[in-house]
Structures are given as structure tokens and as C-alpha cells.
């Protein structure tokens, strides 16, 4: 089955298209800025950028409703921006400052927002998959119709706990969408070198879980597929798998020279399939927006990102007392 493409005449308004353009551009520019701050030594440790994969989260967020949950791995900045978390708080967490979402104690890989139903930010490859199924379990238990987007990569897709989760998710009809962001490389190992069954979504069939492959460079295709998956889950039909074919332009983390693929391969993807350029072109050719309109959006995004960087540089480091807080809860934090 060929990856799902968006229908020829997308049923999408100019305003929606502009919003996707804006949201994807925010992620792209935010990540570029994060890379720059890393280069300046303001961000430490591991930092995994989302550049190239923007259409995945922006498309799926377009299919989500208030109260739906999301959880992902350590390549998580894009997910947080797409679900409406404050760029200042995200960037300040990257710099390890008091104003960060985890007060500087989590860093790039461990950020959360109860308010936006974003459950992390998890640093162990694949561990978020049963956690996501568990979030869906809690919604089913409470009897609401919320769904959980559980994101993981093609690397995590080979972890045993993913299949333990598939088995129980279908057994218990959990409202969880397993989103495989297949960017073709698990750190430096291509999918071809890690499995003889590279069509990851088809593995769901072994557990009775339906799914499909989606063109992850096409935000409208992602949104369409997301809506179908959400409808399936909300109707009480159990889990659904979306394998979203995407591509990361940067290395696995900031310290990855990416010698396992050619510069030409990356450049070709950028030139021919870039998700932001695709929407930009739709906007311009369809006369939904003028160059000036888009320039205004570019400017707005640049200002937001610069402000987040400024905030992240000037927010103080956490107070030393923070070393000893948040180890034990005295009461259960309540759902926002």
C-alpha cells in the first residue's frame, strides 16, 4: 500500500493552511535557534532536533481535540510547540533555567505540561509506548472519549515493550494512536540494517490493530490520516497505528556528524519534499496568501523565537533549594 497522500483538492481553508505554515515554521526556527544556543554552550548534554519532521506533529495536532493526550520520546521540542506549550518555557528548560517547564531539572529530553496534556519527553527508547497505552487506559477507565497520541521512532519500533503494549492495547480496546515517526534512521542505523520487516505499521496486524502508512512530509495527508485514526479510537474500536514516513535533516543529536548518509540524500529531501515549502507553495499558487503575508508570518515567528532565546538566557538558574524538591509528592497533582 502506497503512503497516504492528501486528496487532490484538499478541503482546507486558507486560514488553516496559514496556521500549518506558521506552526511548522515555528518549530523549524525554534530548533535552529536551539542548535545555535547549543553551539554557544548555553544548552548542554543531549539535544535532538526535529527539523524536517514538522508536518508530523502539526498534522496530528490538527486532528486532536481538547483533552486528548500526547507522549513522546526525547526528540520532543516539536511536539511541545505543536500542542501549544509556551516557547519561552521550552527554551528555558533547554538552557536549564528556573523559567523552564521542569524548573530546569528535566532538560531537553524530560519536559511535561499537565495543562496541555503533554506527558513527556522520555529518554529511554520505547519506554513511552506502554506509558502512552496506560494514559489511554486511564481515559477508558474514567469512561471519557479522549485519545492518546503515543509517538515513537523507527528505532523504538523494534523494542519488545512496544509489542507488549500492542497486545494489551488491543486486548483492552484502549483509545491509543501509536504514531511511528519513521525518519529512516535509528541514530546511525538505517531501517534496512535493523529489520527484515521494514513496514512497521503492518506488524500491528499480528495483534489485530489496523493502521496505515502516511506521507509525513505532507501536513494535509498527516491530518487526514490523524482524523481517521482519532475517529476509530473515539468510537471505542481500540488502538490504531500510523506509520508516518518522515525525515530528519539534522543528525540524531547535536554531536552526530551523520556520516551514515550522503549530503546529497539530505539535500534532495530538503529541495523536493520539504513540508514547509510544500505548504508555502500551496499558499502562493492557490493565491491564499501573498509573499508579503508570508513575510509577516516569518517576522512574527522570528520575534517569538528570539524572545524565547532571550528569556532562556536571562531566566536565572534554579535556586539551590530546588535540588531537594519534587522528589516526593505530598499530594497527587490534579489534572488541569
Amino acid at each position, binding site marked *: 500500500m502506497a503512503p497516504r497522500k492528501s486528496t487532490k483538492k484538499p478541503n482546507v481553508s486558507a486560514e488553516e493552511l496559514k496556521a500549518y505554515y506558521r506552526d511548522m515554521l515555528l518549530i523549524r*526556527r525554534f530548533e*535552529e535557534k536551539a542548535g*545555535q544556543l547549543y*553551539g*554557544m*554552550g*548555553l544548552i*548542554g*548534554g543531549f539535544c535532538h532536533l526535529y*527539523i524536517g519532521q514538522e508536518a508530523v506533529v502539526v498534522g496530528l495536532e490538527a486532528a486532536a481535540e481538547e483533552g486528548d493526550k500526547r*507522549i513522546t520520546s526525547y526528540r520532543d521540542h516539536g511536539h511541545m510547540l505543536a500542542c501549544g506549550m509556551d516557547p519561552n518555557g521550552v527554551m528555558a528548560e533547554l538552557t536549564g533555567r528556573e523559567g*523552564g*517547564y*521542569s*524548573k530546569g*531539572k*528535566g532538560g531537553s529530553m*524530560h519536559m*511535561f505540561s*499537565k495543562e496541555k496534556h503533554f*506527558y*513527556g519527553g522520555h529518554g*529511554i527508547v520505547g*519506554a513511552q*509506548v*506502554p*506509558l*502512552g*497505552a*496506560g494514559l*489511554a*487506559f*486511564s*481515559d477508558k*477507565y*474514567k469512561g471519557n472519549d479522549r485519545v492518546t497520541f503515543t509517538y515513537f521512532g523507527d528505532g523504538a519500533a523494534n523494542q519488545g*515493550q512496544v509489542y*507488549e*503494549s500492542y*497486545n*494489551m492495547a488491543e486486548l483492552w480496546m484502549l483509545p491509543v494512536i501509536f504514531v511511528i515517526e519513521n525518519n529512516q534512521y535509528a541514530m546511525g542505523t538505517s531501517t534496512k540494517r535493523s529489520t527484515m520487516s521494514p513496514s512497521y505499521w503492518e506488524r500491528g496486524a499480528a495483534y489485530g490493530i489496523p493502521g496505515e502508512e502516511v506521507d509525513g512530509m505532507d501536513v494535509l495527508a498527516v491530518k487526514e490520516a490523524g482524523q481517521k485514526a482519532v475517529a476509530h479510537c473515539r468510537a471505542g474500536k481500540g488502538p490504531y497505528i500510523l506509520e508516518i514516513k518522515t525525515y530528519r535533516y*539534522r*543528525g540524531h543529536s*547535536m*554531536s552526530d*556528524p*551523520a*556520516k551514515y548518509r550522503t*549530503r546529497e540524500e539530505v539535500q534532495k529531501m*530538503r529541495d523536493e519534499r520539504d513540508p514547509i515549502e510544500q505548504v508555502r507553495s500551496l499558499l502562493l499558487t492557490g493565491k491564499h496568501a501573498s509573499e508579503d503575508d508570508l513575510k509577516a508570518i516569518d517576522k512574527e515567528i522570528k520575534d517569538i523565537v528570539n524572545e524565547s532565546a532571550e528569556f532562556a538566557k536571562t531566566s536565572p*538558574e534554579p535556586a*539551590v*533549594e530546588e*535540588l531537594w524538591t*519534587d*522528589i*516526593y*509528592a505530598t499530594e*497527587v*497533582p490534579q489534572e488541569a
Partner: protein
Amino acid sequence: MATEILMPALSPTMEEGTLSKWLVKEGDTVSSGDIMAEIETDKATMEFEAVDEGTIGKILVAEGTEGVKVNTAIAVLLEEGESADDIDTAPSAPEAAPAADAGNEAAPAASEAPAPAPSAPQTDTTPDWPEGTTLKQQTVREALRDGMAEEMRRDENVFLMGEEVAEYQGAYKISQGMLDEFGTKRVIDTPITEHGFAGIATGAAFGGLRPIVEFMTFNFAMQAIDQIINSAAKTLYMSGGQMGCPMVFRGPNGAAARVAAQHSQDYAVWYMQIPGLKVAMPYSASDYKGLMKTAIRDPNPVIFLENEILYGRSFDVPDLDDYTVPFGKARVWREGSDVTLVSFGIGMQYALEAADKLAEDGISAEVIDLRTLRPMDTGSIIKSVMKTNRCVTVEEGWPQGSVGNYITSVIMQEAFDYLDAPVINCTGKDVPMPYAANLEKLALVTTDEVIAAVKQVTYS
């Protein structure tokens, strides 16, 4: 405004690097994402991409230059309408790397960070139940079930999941009758998939429920330990206090009988080491019940270590509507003046037997049941050692890095001057558990070993 392009740090440890090659020249226009240079770090040769768009106005550091410090200006980027003539060509000194600064500041600050005060021997010695309370004999198995069932009646967000907990009525019959009372929604049989269901339960706790996860034994929890430690224990801290994880992981721990190495291990010290977890390891039925109820109500992940051999043993249990036992409060089972015996879980059996026999020889032993290992009531231990001046610890686990080792270090730091003899840790032997009946007996800690240790520290 012209922008300086700075030498980037391209790995967590890079301080300087070699500017191997420029891929752009002065006058070239670049846009974000274009590769401008190759830089050799301490680990690899990396491509350096442009972040902003503009024209390369001036290259300040020639290619081939080694030892270029991070944050040195290496080129100048001009925006539309700017000219290269405006550039001050003197390369600026590297901006001090903010991260390094932060490190320097943090170092002294960290040492000033308030460490938890050494626990003064202030101890809660109030009795567990009021005088005159009616007592009934109950097995540990019944007390555990009652504790869980009472909490499930009290809070509908509490549910039990695990292998064979529902239709089979529990592999060790702990959940007997619970399926009938609470139904399939709240008493849930899982496939044999510890890693997966521990993760699902942790996610459910993040989602606002209060799961009780039964491991058929804690040996199988090793399949799930990543979820217990990395997900359940650490998320509150990593989220700056946003994400709670109110749940209980419970099941039999330690040696049963004749089940050999893979099914006979005491994990007390493994979990006791983890900040973010609470760890209970009760001995008596009343503690199983009272601590289980406290564990279920606790807003943190609790490891509840049970013992298969104790399941069928009967103890006095107070006949009260809502009996709970607080965490971090040891129970003094027996007062004494010559030596302090400290134990927990099934180790208490050996400690109490030893105390009985020692009394016959005229040695008066005080016996302390820790009941919870994290938090640990070290205050009660110190208070007792200040009185007896001698201490022997008793546990089933292995000797290297044992719970007793930790207790010993606390006594050394807080009551060194009170000690009249070295503290002895009685533990299981430093071997995998053998199957043969005679060897198994040898591998476990014994009452005789406890008695011998007491005689050694009392020089009798």
C-alpha cells in the same frame, strides 16, 4: 545589523576545535540550513549550518586553524543593505562560555545546598493501636487482601492488575474474592508481560488513577525495572513537580522454599537506593494491612515487598474500621538493654527467635522492625544503640551493599562514640540460591548466626 558567527560547541564536551574547511566564501549569500563549514571536534568532523540568512561579509578565522575556542567569532554575516566595509575586522575574544560559568558558580553553590539534617534520635513511639482495642487473629494473606479491598471501596480510582489476580484468585490467593466484589474493570488479569503492564500501570497513574500492580514475584519485576525506576520514580522530579505517580508495586520477594536461584532473591536494597520510591517490607499481619492502606493512599510510587513464607502466618490484627500504619516509623517488638537487633520482613523471624534464646542466656536484646526501608526510621535505631551500645542487623539479602551496611554507616556517623563493638551484619550467603535442601538451608541467614553475632558483640 551584522551578526558574528561564533565557533560552535558541537558535542557535550567540546571546548575548542579545528576549523577544517570553509564551504562558503566572502560575498556568498546563505540561508538557514546551508552548510557553511566543516569543524573538527574532539569526537568527529561536523558540518556547521547557518542559522540566519544573509551575506558572508568577512571570514575572521582561516580554514585549517586549530584550537579555535568555542564562541570565538569566526565570520561576520551581513543583512540586506549592509557593507563589508562596516566591519571591525579585529576578531573579538571568545565570549566566556556561559555553561562553563554556570558550572563554576554551581560548584560552590552546590556544596552550600541544604543537605538533609542528620536525623536526631527523635522517634515516634506511640503505639500502633489504642489500648483496649479488640484484636483478631488473621493471616498475612487475609490482612493484605483486606487492606487492598478496604482502599478499593474507599476510592474507585484504585484498581489491581497482574498475572492471575482475577479469575485464578491470585497465584498466592492474595486477591481471593476481589474479582467477585469489584468486577473485571478493577481486578484485571494481564498477559505475562511485566515490562509492558508495569509501563501501562505507570501511565495510568500519570493519567490520575491509583494502580496496584501485583508481580507474581519480585524476581519477575526485573523485566520491568526500567519502568519502575526511570518512569515511575523519576518523573515527579523531571517534571518539576507536575506529574505524580501514585501507585503500588507489590508481590512476594526473597526466598520461598526450594525454588532455586532465579526465584529466590531479596530486592530490598535495590529499591531502597532509589530517590522517588518508597519501600515497605513488613513482617506482621497488622503491618501488612496498615502499611498497604498507607501505600495505596500515598501520592508516590511504593514498592511493597511481601514474603511467601509469611503469607500463611497468623498475627494479632486490630479490629478497627480504618487501620493504617505510617511510613518511616519502626516498631520495637521487644525492649532490651544489651544489644539492638535491627531487621525487617522475614528477617524479623530470626531476630525474634534469637532474642528469645539469648534471654535464656541472660542477654537482653532490643528488637526493632523497620517496617519501611525508605523512609527509614534511623532515629529509632540510633536511640536504641545509644542505650545498648551494640548492634546486629539481620536480613536475607546478600552481604555486599546490604541494608545492614547502610544502617552501619548511619550508626558510625551518628552514634560512633556510643559503640562498644563493631556492628555486625547478618545476611544471606554470597551465593546464588542453591536448590538442594541442605545447601539452601546453609545459604539463608539463620537464628544461630544471629545468636553468634550477638555473643561476639557482647563479648560473651
